[in-house]
């Protein structure tokens, strides 16, 4: 859509499905209204917002669309229908997404109708490269398939900790995979990108933490595949997830994007930690998301060697001092100007610095940060239960883990590159999430990220007993996403098409 004011209005209402409910008669509306048609003037001031974003709806009726309007042609064929919420009190139009359909397929509509669906945040339709990217949550997936419905229950904090740490996290990878040899990689659906993944991961982190989104005062999104050169992902995340108090269509939250290749997110862990620790900041919680639709040139082009490893996904971490599941014990970062991997402005794909990628880049920096942090905290390898490293492929993290003296059981749990591919800014965060999924209380985790360009951030985290309490809040765990029976595998051509997207 070329009209930005219209885009702003549509995205405000449509990105996070919301409606209004009359306190007097209970009538509900999709869209925001000041009064109720039933109750008239007396209902002014007595309308409350309803939020459908975390709810599940029901697909009432549907049909197949195989000749979409022009803007939807890239989606091919899809199921479209009417979705009801609250026992039919609200009905909205909706497209079923995450479904690879073939033209003129025979669909049994009655088998789809009546099933529960979950709102998803997606690109709305295709636009020109220079246009604002339209997004919407009038896209749904079936709740009994890959993405289950999860309630967002805001819990009262039980305990305040002396030092801050992670209070919740979420990992989102798409339903689609490409499998080549021993490695499976997550592939975005055609209406997904790094923005939609960031929102999904953030949503899952909120659900896991039980923290009121209005208390989140800062959001950092690290990515190297933002579809915009100028326009933050973080502002979209803040609006869709309603981070900070909402006032006059604005969120009382500071939102910013960061970039440092694959360490754009981990770099901000310390900033988030420091921010919630600083009493004058008035920020109770800070969210950090690493999200990437990892870019790579096609296999036969310069830089195409990356195409063997790139994945798609995001991980979000919420930092605070209440109900902490993993306290931050300390950190160390190092940086040097090493041109091992870069993408020039305006270029669609990154380039790779050949011999710079291994020893002078990844190994040198990860080794330095991990060793230095262990030295500072006076830690031995045996004091650490899990080691997490950036994982651009399988060999690199295994080699550095071994070199540092870690045993297989210490580093294997984080190796998710074999399941999701290299999710760039999300790579070491996904590894950390995989470890948090299985860690016991009082486990020590050493994380060493890596960002080309180059630098590494090392963190030491110690889990608390509350890690077990919160586990029930998350159905979409890393394991769930790797072993889901609804995963759909695509061929190379489809993978490239989906990756380019709308």
């Amino acid at each position: 859509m070329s009209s930005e004011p219209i885009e702003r209005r549509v995205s405000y209402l449509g990105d996070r499905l919301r409606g209004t409910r009359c306190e007097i008669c209970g009538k509900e509306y999709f869209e925001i209204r000041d009064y109720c048609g039933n109750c008239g003037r007396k209902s002014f001031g007595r309308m409350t917002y309803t939020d459908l974003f975390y709810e599940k709806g029901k697909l009432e009726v549907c049909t197949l669309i195989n000749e979409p309007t022009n803007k939807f042609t890239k989606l091919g064929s899809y199921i479209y229908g009417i979705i009801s919420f609250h026992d039919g009190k609200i009905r909205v139009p909706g497209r079923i997404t995450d479904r690879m359909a073939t033209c003129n397929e025979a669909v049994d509509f009655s088998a789809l109708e009546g099933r529960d669906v979950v709102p998803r945040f997606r690109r709305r339709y295709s636009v020109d490269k220079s246009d604002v990217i339209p997004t919407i949550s009038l896209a749904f997936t079936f709740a009994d398939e890959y993405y289950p419905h999860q309630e967002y229950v805001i819990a009262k904090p039980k305990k305040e900790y002396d030092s801050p740490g992670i209070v919740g996290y979420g990992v989102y990878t798409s339903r689609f995979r490409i499998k080549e040899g021993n490695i499976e990689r997550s592939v975005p659906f055609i209406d997904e990108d790094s923005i939609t993944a960031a929102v999904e991961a953030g949503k899952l982190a909120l659900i896991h933490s039980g923290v009121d989104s209005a208390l989140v005062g800062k959001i950092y999104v690290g990515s190297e595949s933002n579809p915009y050169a100028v326009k933050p992902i973080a502002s979209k995340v803040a609006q869709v997830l309603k981070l900070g108090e909402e006032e006059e269509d604005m969120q009382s939250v500071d939102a910013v994007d960061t970039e440092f290749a694959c360490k754009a997110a981990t770099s901000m862990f310390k900033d988030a930690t420091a921010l919630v620790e600083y009493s004058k900041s008035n920020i109770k919680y800070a969210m950090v998301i690493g999200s990437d639709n990892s870019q790579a040139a096609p296999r036969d082009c310069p830089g195409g060697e990356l195409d063997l490893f790139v994945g798609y996904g995001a991980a979000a971490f919420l930092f605070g001092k209440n109900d902490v599941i993993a306290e931050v014990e300390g950190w160390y970062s190092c940086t040097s100007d090493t041109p091992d991997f870069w993408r020039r402005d305006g270029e669609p794909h990154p380039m790779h610095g050949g011999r710079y990628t291994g020893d002078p880049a990844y190994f040198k920096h990860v080794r330095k940060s991990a060793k230095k942090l262990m030295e500072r905290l006076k830690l031995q390898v045996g004091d650490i239960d899990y080691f997490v490293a950036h994982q651009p492929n399988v060999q690199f993290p295994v080699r550095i883990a071994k070199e540092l003296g870690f045993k297989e059981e210490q580093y294997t749990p984080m190796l998710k590159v074999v399941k999701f591919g290299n999710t760039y800014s999300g790579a070491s965060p996904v590894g950390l999430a995989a470890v948090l999924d299985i860690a016991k209380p009082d486990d020590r985790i050493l994380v060493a990220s890596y960002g080309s360009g180059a630098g590494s951030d090392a963190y030491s985290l110690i889990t608390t007993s509350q890690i077990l309490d919160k586990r029930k809040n998350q159905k979409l765990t890393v394991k769930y996403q790797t072993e889901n029976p609804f995963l759909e595998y695509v061929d190379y051509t489809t993978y490239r098409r989906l990756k380019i997207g709308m």
Partner: protein
Amino acid sequence: MKVRPAIIAVGRTRFGEHYEKEPEKLIEEAWLRASAEADIERKSLEACYLSDYFLPITNKLGLEEGFLSELTELHAPMEVTRSFGSALSNACNAIQAGRYDLVLVGGIEKMTDRWDKIRDDLMLLEDPWSFYAGCTPEANHELMLRAYVKKYGIAGEKLEKLNVALAQVSVKNHLHATKNQCAQYQRKITVDQVLSARKEAGKPLGLYDYAPISDGAAALILTSEEMAKKYTDKPVYVLGSSSATDYLTYPARDDMTHFVVSRIAMKNALSMAGKSLTDMQVVELYDQSTVMEMVSLEDLGFCEPGKAWESIYKSCQDYKGYYEIGRKKLFVNINGGLKADGNPLGATGGAQIFEVVKQLKGEAGERQVENGEKLKCGCVLELEGFGTKGYVYVLGRD
């Protein structure tokens, strides 16, 4: 109605693709035919009401009134609305108020000039939220059918019959259009063709269930009852007229199986006309799809909710030119309906009025039903969007 507006002349162009003609040429053609019928010079017109949906988009004509002024060399008041029904409503109000005595109502559309983009335009106009969610102009009709089937528990053999009945609607309308020189499709189709098009598309409705996109124009000249006899021996009166409005977002409406606007407008138009349903002999329905013709029969009250398909099915087993509903003949879409006559949005309502007027006057030629003599009364239903607005006109003669 104290002052009954009278239609003294009607004119229209053929509907279809008119890529060689400017929109102005089309409306002129319709106007010339109407004016020739009543022997009226354009200088006598006191006001013009023009309807079009998309001329500013399809032909980059903003301020259509200016083009009309240039064409007619008139400086009379001119207003532009979307549907013909809306333009006629304004004209009727003006005549009844005694403001004018002679006005032109014209409708024009030239959709094929933008055939590759018009579905997007249509969808955005009809229902923006559904458009954003991925809807097409056809999908809402299919969803309505799905909702209808579920609501009335139609399954098995009954469902098969319903599907055939809907196909028969299309077949019947095509049959009617073979006698209409102005129709877009003057050819017969078969039930099998309709069914196999659905099967090919893998959807509840297929190509032959939908009205096409069209170019065309229609016009009529309206005056007061008092003045009418000066121009014609056989004026047709607007006995009742009414319109109603519903939510733009189809899924948000209370009833997903019917158009509340049709029901309300029909009820009010009948009461205004002092007529009952049984007085209606010829009916022009807005069959943008076969489903729309079916539900409109119920919305207007001719059939019980959930039952129209049965009457259609029975009538079409051995089709005699009309639907038999409760042992009564009802002539529906004699011009071929939107399906076969064509659907140039702004002019569509004009063609519907044109047909009822011609039938009531006994001037419908080959299409004439009941020799015209027995015909006294008919009605027209025109919808805007996907049932967002509904206009009903009850027309009658002396």
